[in-house]
């Protein structure tokens, strides 16, 4: 790499050449996978355990068992000293770190494996349940939060009326309302939706009101000199003026809603993707656990990419509609 290339890659607040950008984006995903592969496939990297392939004369070793390397070495020395059959094994990682190929297989088998009990749900059913909880929690929160935020950002009256209490309430962690939500709303979907609502709503009002306040005030003045009354200022200037930013806010908040999902689904009767993950962890199917965690990431990223692409279509007047 010559100096020129280095300058191209590291010039302050300038875009790299298109080719490099694409390459670095790919690396962003490839590097973590590469690190994971190294740890999984290179025997002398980490591998603190030994997977027994032949127990030899050690009474309590069984084939396929994972034991600590020190223990294995100690037993080997002991057997060596007494001249009995030596145990055999190969270096392995702990059970909670499956290799990449195992997780890739699990992506498929997790969907095709029948649940252990009749009453339990398939993975796709669990996922669908989670998506519904997120959707309703976020939808209901936005239904109330967005109008309140816009009012608070537009009128000082509503700002004073709503914001001090909301500022207080948003410091209360949503999960502390779990028990209360179950007591009031029962053990099924309703309290979970309530937790997502509580987790999203208060931040939402504050973020939306802030976005509303950032609208260029000279647009409001221009509208006034063109004869716009109070109502028209709100409906014809404030709301259309903030829509692209509002849309971007909601995209970010939707990401937050996912973080509350895990807590929400542990409340009352455990359900959805969280139930699946805890269940699989209990069975020590960590490949399934990893697959499920990644599925959440993939759903989140895909939704966001779709929403970002849509924003270009919905707001043609935005020069950089893709936004953050």
């Amino acid at each position, binding site marked *: 790499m010559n100096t020129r290339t280095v300058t191209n890659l590291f010039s302050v607040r300038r875009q790299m050449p298109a080719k490099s950008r694409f390459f670095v984006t790919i690396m962003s995903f490839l590097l973590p996978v590469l690190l994971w592969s190294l740890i999984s496939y290179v025997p002398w990297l980490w591998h603190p355990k030994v997977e027994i392939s032949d127990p030899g004369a050690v009474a309590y070793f069984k084939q396929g068992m994972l034991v600590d390397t020190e223990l294995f070495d100690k037993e080997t020395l002991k057997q060596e000293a007494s001249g009995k059959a030596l145990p055999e094994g190969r270096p392995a990682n702990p059970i909670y770190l499956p290799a990449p190929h195992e997780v890739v297989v699990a992506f498929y088998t997790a969907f095709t494996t029948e649940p252990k009990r009749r009453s339990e749900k398939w993975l796709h059913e669990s996922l669908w349940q989670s998506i519904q909880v997120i959707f309703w929690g976020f939808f209901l929160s936005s239904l109330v939060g967005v109008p309140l935020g816009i009012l608070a950002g537009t009128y000082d009256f509503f700002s004073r009326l709503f914001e001090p209490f909301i500022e207080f309430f948003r410091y209360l962690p949503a999960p502390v309302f779990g028990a209360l939500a179950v007591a009031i709303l029962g053990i099924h979907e309703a309290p979970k939706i309530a937790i997502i609502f509580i987790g999203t709503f208060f931040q939402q009002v504050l973020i939306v009101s802030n976005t509303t306040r950032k609208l260029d005030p*000279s647009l409001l003045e221009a509208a*006034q*000199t*063109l004869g716009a009354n109070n109502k028209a200022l709100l409906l*014809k200037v404030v709301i*259309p003026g903030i829509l692209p930013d509002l849309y971007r806010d909601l995209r970010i908040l939707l990401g937050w809603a996912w973080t509350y999902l895990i807590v929400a689904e542990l409340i009352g009767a455990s359900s959805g993707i969280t139930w699946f993950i805890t269940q699989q962890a209990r069975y020590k199917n960590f490949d399934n656990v990893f697959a499920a965690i990644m599925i959440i990431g993939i759903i989140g990223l895909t939704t966001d990419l779709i929403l970002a692409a849509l924003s270009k279509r919905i707001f043609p*007047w935005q020069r950089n509609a893709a936004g953050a």
Partner: protein
Amino acid sequence: MTHILELPTYLDQDDAVKDRFARLKQRPIALEVKDLSKTFETTGGTVTALKDINFNTHKREFVCVIGPSGCGKSTLIRILAGLESPTSGEVLLDGKAVHGPGPDRGMVFQGYTLFPWLTVKRNVMFGLLQSGHSREHAEEDARQWIDLVGLTKFVDSYPHQLSGGMKQRVAIARALANQPGILLMDEPFGALDAQTRIKMQTYLMDIWKNIDITILFITHDLDEAIYLADRILVLKAHPGEVQELIEVPVPQPRSPEQLLSPEFLATKKRLEELIHPPQEGDEINGDHMNMVRMVPVDHEVESVF
């Protein structure tokens, strides 16, 4: 050797100009500003932005307001537009006192202020729809105004697709579409490059000639003020007061060649005296540079002269 031109005084008017001003003053009064004052309360005490401003503009007159920074010219135009309220005094438009902003006074801002989410056509329709015109009528009217400022090709473009000069033409069309009694312009061409500015000045003169509109135009550019105005209201700073109302002796209609005419230069000289008087206090106030020679004595370019 430097030649200093012998200039006539700006008070000399030839007969045609004299006659025109006599007729101009016969016209009915469009805007009347009476004893207008504005003070602001700040942490440092009370600041008087404007003090006892009095002036009239006649129908279809072009008045420029000019003054040093801090003279309150922006505050003045914002009060006229109704975006701020005066501490005392009043503003009459066609004899009626005005309170708050309204479509009877059009305003063009320096920062364009077009609605970015509306196309050019929708921007111009905005005021018409607010005053209760039907969509069809508003659209038809808007097309005419857009045609007038020469942007027919861009009716369906969004503001971000236009150049600065084009944006400001849309803003003018948008303000005129409401058919206001007076058009208030707050340094409208201040953000444009010199060439575009001259073009815009010519456009504006054309519009003013052909449309029943009184214009009050704020600028800090002396040439722009003399080139455009019938009369120039010169303000002084701290507090903002009327210093002089100058009748521009340059004959109408104006053309760019007049920028070097004796009347033009005489007016400019007067404005320079009023706005940039020699400040004796500058040195004492520390408002000067500590310049020392930093070129080596044996430098290849020993002196720039």
